[in-house]
């Protein structure tokens, strides 16, 4: 599998918009959309955990080329907290209940639009990484917090 490309991010944005899916880019992929210079492997989407939204998501994922079985679709629609997809044109992590963010509605209200991409506010991205308390996140947090100060001063 090749690295995730910008045109694939556009495909996610456009397909999920067509299906009316409420989601946000989160994690390092979200930070990168906000301008954070770093490397990552996958895109992470924070998806609103509502049955109708999950059904729309499954339709959007199928349109994008993810080969979901009926059982997998049902699992996503039932609302698992975390789903890893490596059965499509690119790898995608679906997070329905990220650590450190209490409600999707709060993150949605604070979201940032970057060229039509709905992105979690950097404070939410940092909060979720702090709450997950993984070694790989803890290593990137000092630089991410520094970027937050830069971003708050310079964001347009």
């Amino acid at each position, binding site marked *: *599998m*090749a*690295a*995730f*490309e*910008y045109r694939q*991010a556009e495909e996610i944005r456009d397909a999920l918009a067509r299906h009316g899916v409420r989601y946000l880019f989160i994690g390092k*992929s979200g930070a*990168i*959309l906000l*301008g*954070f*210079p*770093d*490397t*990552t*492997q996958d895109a992470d989407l924070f998806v609103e955990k509502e049955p109708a939204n999950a059904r729309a998501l499954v339709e959007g994922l199928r349109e994008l080329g993810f*080969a*979901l079985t009926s059982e*997998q679709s049902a*699992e*996503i629609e039932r609302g*698992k*907290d*975390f*789903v*890893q*997809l*490596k*059965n499509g044109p690119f790898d995608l992590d679906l*997070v329905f*209940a*990220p*650590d450190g963010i209490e409600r999707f509605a709060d993150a949605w209200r604070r979201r940032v639009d*970057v*060229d039509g991409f709905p992105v979690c506010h950097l*404070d*939410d991205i*940092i*909060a979720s990484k702090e709450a*997950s*308390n*993984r*070694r*790989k996140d*803890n*290593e990137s947090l000092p*630089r991410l*917090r*520094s*970027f*937050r*100060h*830069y*971003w*708050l*001063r*310079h964001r347009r």
Partner: protein
Amino acid sequence: MSGQEESPIPIPSDWLEEFEAAARRPLPLRFRYAFVKTYKPVLDDAPYRAFETMEDYRRWCEECLPDWLGYGRV
């Protein structure tokens, strides 16, 4: 959540240079520099995984992934 009213902390000069350079790049170019692909053992070996709770996922990461990947909690 971090408050926006905090007084700014100094940003290390090398990081500041990187932030400013990134800000000058168009988004597609930022993507090209940011997304890389390397094989991650175990993690990349199944086409689909789903976890009922985040706690289940975190526990699976700690029990099944090599420690050096960094997915374990501190």
